[in-house]
């Protein structure tokens, strides 16, 4: 076999962007995707970020059953085989960790220091939550759905128990057993996880074992202290009290640049690419501005889209002068909300969505 040095160097250049994840924690496992790898409409399962609060204790799918109880007329225990006999539901939508971008907040806050890659877009398949709850017959008194996974932590560590409003659960939520057409991988919550389109990842409970309909929201650290959002904005660094915050639900409108050259020749045209998404069902426009201009110009949106999926975009940028340029991107969602230049401060570093930029050096 002949050694092709050029081919090797070309592969060596792209391999770091195609073959690895970035480990934020070894155990419990937390890994993010390099931003430059997030170029596909559907993020491949093996490149999809993983967020785990505790060391996973994955249920045995052969004996596993989903318990549905609480304010219901007929409590149920449903096996995976039974769930698969029910009408199939699918949604292509973004999963983003609430803390994605925490490392970019200033001043620094504790937690996993995600940069840009705790986000991905996948096709989730399974069964509608409303179909499962209909089997149990939810009583009118129920207003919330408590979700329990199998990843119970040791000792006094608070369990990651969450709940969502029943209205949202009945609207468009899915219990997914497939991800991008393949069985849901263990690290993504097999055999079953919650899919909550438009809402941050803390609601997307993995390794589901129990759903309980209830009149009141879940209590505990992960409802009363964590995953809360300031009702009124405050100066960076201020610490809000729990009562000054509300539960964090929808994601904020956001766009990122995934593809841009670091250097280019004067007069050349660069193919800038990226993605945009929001808690709103769609993206209305994506715009770019370079540091020489005062106005944003529209990027071209990819034809593929679905409610709460991300929208890929592209933009052809022509270099007009030598030197270092900074290109900014911002998105506007279907409700008319535009990504802000500066992200809203909160002491947990949630939903960072400041304008993203790329730096390009133009040479003669």
């Amino acid at each position: 076999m002949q050694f092709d040095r050029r081919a090797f160097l070309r592969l060596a250049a792209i391999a770091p962007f195609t073959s690895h994840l970035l480990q934020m924690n070894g155990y419990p496992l937390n890994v993010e995707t390099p931003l430059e790898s997030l170029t596909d409409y559907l993020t491949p399962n093996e490149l999809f970020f993983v967020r785990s609060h505790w060391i996973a204790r994955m249920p045995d799918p052969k004996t596993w059953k989903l318990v549905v109880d609480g304010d219901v007329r007929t409590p149920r225990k449903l096996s995976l085989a039974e769930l698969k006999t029910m009408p199939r539901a699918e949604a292509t939508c973004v999963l983003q960790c609430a803390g994605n971008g925490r490392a970019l907040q200033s001043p620094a806050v504790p937690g996993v220091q995600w940069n840009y890659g705790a986000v991905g877009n996948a096709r989730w398949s399974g069964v509608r939550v409303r179909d499962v709850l209909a089997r149990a017959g939810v009583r009118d008194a129920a207003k919330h759905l408590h979700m329990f996974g199998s990843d119970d932590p040791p000792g006094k560590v608070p369990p990651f128990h969450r709940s969502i409003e029943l209205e949202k659960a009945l609207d468009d939520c899915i219990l997914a057993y497939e991800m991008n057409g393949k069985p849901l991988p263990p690290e993504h919550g097999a055999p079953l996880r919650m899919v909550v389109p438009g809402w941050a990842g803390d609601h997307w409970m993995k390794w589901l074992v129990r759903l309980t309909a209830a009149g009141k929201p879940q209590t505990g650290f992960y409802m009363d202290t964590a995953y809360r959002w300031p009702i009124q904005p405050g100066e960076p660094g201020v610490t809000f009290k729990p009562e000054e915050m509300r539960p964090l639900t929808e994601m904020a409108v956001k766009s990122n640049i995934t593809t841009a050259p670091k250097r280019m020749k004067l007069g050349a045209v660069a193919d800038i690419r990226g993605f945009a998404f929001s808690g709103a069902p769609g993206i209305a426009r994506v715009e770019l501005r370079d540091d020489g201009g005062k106005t944003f110009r529209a990027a071209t949106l990819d034809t593929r889209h679905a409610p709460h999926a991300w929208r890929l975009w592209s933009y052809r940028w022509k270099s007009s002068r030598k030197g270092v340029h900074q290109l900014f991107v911002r998105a506007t969602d279907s409700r008319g909300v535009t990504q802000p230049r500066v992200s809203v401060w909160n002491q947990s570093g949630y939903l960072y969505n400041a304008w993203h930029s790329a730096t390009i050096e133009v040479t003669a």
Partner: protein
Amino acid sequence: MKALLVLILAASLPMPGTKFKELPPGKAKVDVEAACYACHSADILVQQRLNQKQWTATVEKMMRWGAVVPPEKKMPIVEYLARHFGPGAKFEPIRVQVPPR
């Protein structure tokens, strides 16, 4: 050839969760390891950029959550963490191989 090269490059990376960041030398290193490693690896510690007040709050939270920290070890642990992982500290995540398709 291309496939072989990609394989070689990928194989040179560790699998997720098989390699962890190590703590820098210091008197309190062994106490940090004893208090923290039962629940999580050092990666999550070494990426923080917290001041002493934030580290104190974090260590106290972990003690409430069951971390075993003898009273006389608390301040040395806080000072060790604030000295090494204070504002401005740099962190490079470990590159890990994507799980096989």
